[in-house]
């Protein structure tokens, strides 16, 4: 069944449950595509954390008629700018390339997803790479902070990271990889997205031809479970120049009717350099170079992540001001702030429409989180409905509180909530 909607968006679901979403971008020369499989860290077997990333690494090591090197050369010869990787709830594959090379790339990805060799003699390399990524995390303090913040915020599998654990990575065997591929790389619930210059009917025919025989569905995702109460965790790192500060607190899920009020409240905090966090923390006090708050969503839950990085002498003040601004939201936002947030959001949406890579990421994510792709007109209408009063009503029902705070650096701080 084909259900064309307004604008340049089209969706189509194959009999095996693979959903195709496409957005034609007039005048584009490129096409960006993505396969999004609901196979991320949350559905890994408990003792094998890190399996998703290892499997994603291994499927490129030979597939169909091509060995590892030949496959890499074939992708390169198409000029493919490869993207993707394992994430918390999903693993993605794809990239961007000149539009005329799209059909050839899809054939290669049919081999990668359906017929990977998973060569046993390459497992040691894949394992070493996975272990190295964990070691390298130590040299990337802000990334490490967010890994721990997610773990502190969620109880259960959503606290995991796709980086896995040393024990989990060591435990993965060649048999596990085969079994995992057979179980989780499945069409039902998976998404294929494409944006740029392409003919949707031709793409549907090609995908049907290449993936039509694929059957089955991956295990369902667990329900995200935020911890009931906020907590504070300090990760000591004596040698760091800056203290990393991360704060997480709940907000409504992306499919909740109040979602746009929630997201606009975060825009008031952090949509641009005129918004509250940047003005109060950086401009007025010079406490940081980087400070922000952002919406993060998993399927069925939303949260706000806030961040600041500062030198240790000023870290307590920075945390105090940051939390103070989060709590102050409930005292009300002005019409002027809402108008700025609205303009920023809508104008970045229009500009995002110029980039094939940004659009394919966006439509696949919409389909994954909401089960459908929103049009620009729908988002515009929703955003225009948001008023200071509607945000206020949302914030009164869901005041920012129960902060989960993680700091990484030389000094432990005090959370004065």
């Amino acid at each position, binding site marked *: 069944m084909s259900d064309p909607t307004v604008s340049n968006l089209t969706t189509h679901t194959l009999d095996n449950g693979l959903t195709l979403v496409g957005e034609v971008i007039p005048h584009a020369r490129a096409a960006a595509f993505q396969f999004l499989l609901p196979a991320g860290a949350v559905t890994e077997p408990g003792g094998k954390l890190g399996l998703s990333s290892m499997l994603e690494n291994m499927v490129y090591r030979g597939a169909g008629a091509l060995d590892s090197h030949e496959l890499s050369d074939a992708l390169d010869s198409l000029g493919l700018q490869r993207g993707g990787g394992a994430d918390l709830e999903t693993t993605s594959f794809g990239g961007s390339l000149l539009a005329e090379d799209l059909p050839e790339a899809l054939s290669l990805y049919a081999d990668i997803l359906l017929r990977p060799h998973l060569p046993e003699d390459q497992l040691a390399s894949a394992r070493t790479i996975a272990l190295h990524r964990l070691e390298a995390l130590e040299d990337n303090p802000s990334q490490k902070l967010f890994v721990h913040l997610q773990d502190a915020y969620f109880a259960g599998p959503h606290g995991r990271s796709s980086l896995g654990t040393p024990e989990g990575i060591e435990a993965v065997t060649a048999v596990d990889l085969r079994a995992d591929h057979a179980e989780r790389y499945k069409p039902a619930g998976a998404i294929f997205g494409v944006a740029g210059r392409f003919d949707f009917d031709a793409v549907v025919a090609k995908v049907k031809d290449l993936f039509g025989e694929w059957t089955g569905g991956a295990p369902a995702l667990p329900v995200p479970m935020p911890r009931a109460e906020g907590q504070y965790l300090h990760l000591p790192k004596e040698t760091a120049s800056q203290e990393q500060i991360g704060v997480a607190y709940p907000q409504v899920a992306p499919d909740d009717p109040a979602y746009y009020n929630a997201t606009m409240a975060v825009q008031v905090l952090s949509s641009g350099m005129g918004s509250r966090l940047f003005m109060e923390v950086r401009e007025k006090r010079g406490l940081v170079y980087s400070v922000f708050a952002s919406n993060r969503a998993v399927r069925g839950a939303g949260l706000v992540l806030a961040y600041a990085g500062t030198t240790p002498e000023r870290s307590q003040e920075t945390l105090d001001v940051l939390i103070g601004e989060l709590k102050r939201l409930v005292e009300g936002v002005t019409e002027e702030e809402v108008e700025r947030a609205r303009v920023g959001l809508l104008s*970045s949406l229009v500009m995002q429409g110029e980039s094939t890579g940004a659009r394919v990421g966006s439509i696949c994510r919409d389909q994954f989180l909401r089960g459908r792709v929103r049009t620009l007109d729908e988002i515009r209408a929703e955003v225009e409905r948001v008023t200071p009063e509607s945000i206020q009503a949302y914030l009164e029902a869901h005041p920012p509180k129960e902060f989960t705070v993680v700091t990484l650096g030389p000094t432990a701080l005090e959370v004065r909530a």
Partner: protein
Amino acid sequence: MNYPRTTLDNGLEIIGEQNPDAKSVALGFFVRTGSRDETPAIAGVSHFLEHMVFKGNADWTPDKVNLEFDRIGAKYNAQTSDEATVYYGAVLPERQERLLGLFGSLMRPSLRSDDFDTEKKVILEEIALYLDNPGFTLIDKAQEWFFGEHPLGQSVLGTDQSITDLTRDQMMEYFTLRYAPNNIKLVLTGAFDWDAAVRQAETLTRDWEPQRTPRVLTEPEPRPAVRVEKTDKYNRAHLCWMTAGLAEQDPGRYAADVAAYAVGARRGSRLYWALTEPGIADSAWFDHWSKDGGGIYVGYASCDPTRSQEVADLLREALQTAKADGLTEAEVNGSRRKIAAGRTLHGETPLGRLMSVGSDWLYRHEVNSLDEEIERTLAVTVEDANDALAALKTDAALLAGLGPIEALR
């Protein structure tokens, strides 16, 4: 595409790449100044000044500046390198006038003392932030070690000391000389209104005074060496290899880019197969960076500290082998096509094109369309790429290490 251009009486050049099909307008002021134009006493002033520009002037208070950018929904920023300071932004076409009006006014900042003191703290935070990033820190140090006293050895951020010591008057003196209209280009891309932009720029820059703003392009004297800075601040060993490359003005840079990408793209390259794919290094890449009147080839890898010598040896061996035996047609083709696709994607948005058009004009006083750029990339032959590698000065290279390692050979 249209390529209008004009020069105002004060020497300000305006150049555009007009694309009526675009959904946005991007525009930027490209100032031909950066850390290479500083003396050691004012190290970091270009970058600090870039921050201070956003603090405004008599017409624009700092708060008003930030609010106005947000009110027009601008996607905007600024960046400072060793040789250029660029202020850029994109808006929907109906807001072109407000974006140009704001940026145009900001290019004449007051540099108020209280703003200067507050922003100094932000700069010191930015320095601290990058100290926690070993890859960035090492490449910065490597350029300092490789270029020595040559201006290209100067760090963009400066040091804690140089920033702490810097005064507002020193900055104003630097500003007056370097931000003269004849040292700045105004560049527009996307769906802009050319006549309106030129008229507005004339009014905005009427009082800007031309200056003599020379940049002396002295030949760098690279210092090949092996240097290690041991520190327990980082967990992994970080390695950098550097040698002389081609200038922005050298047409051979297309071949150098293709060759470097074949040797060191993050996937599918010689270094990928030698170091990354087998899990010997966490990451490894090799690239070619053109600069004004010179350039560098840069290689980087991070790895387990116990394997740092092995990784350094494998990296150099991969370069030597590529230089001695040459690249294959398949390697060069893959490299060409990936670069061409990358340029295409980068050029999808007016903001992406702005950077290419601006640097074309800044360095070469010419503008190449995206098609021309792609054509030149695809025209690089195996012979061209191998000639570029044959000229690679592997015996005049720097090998630098940073992390918990004692020494390298």
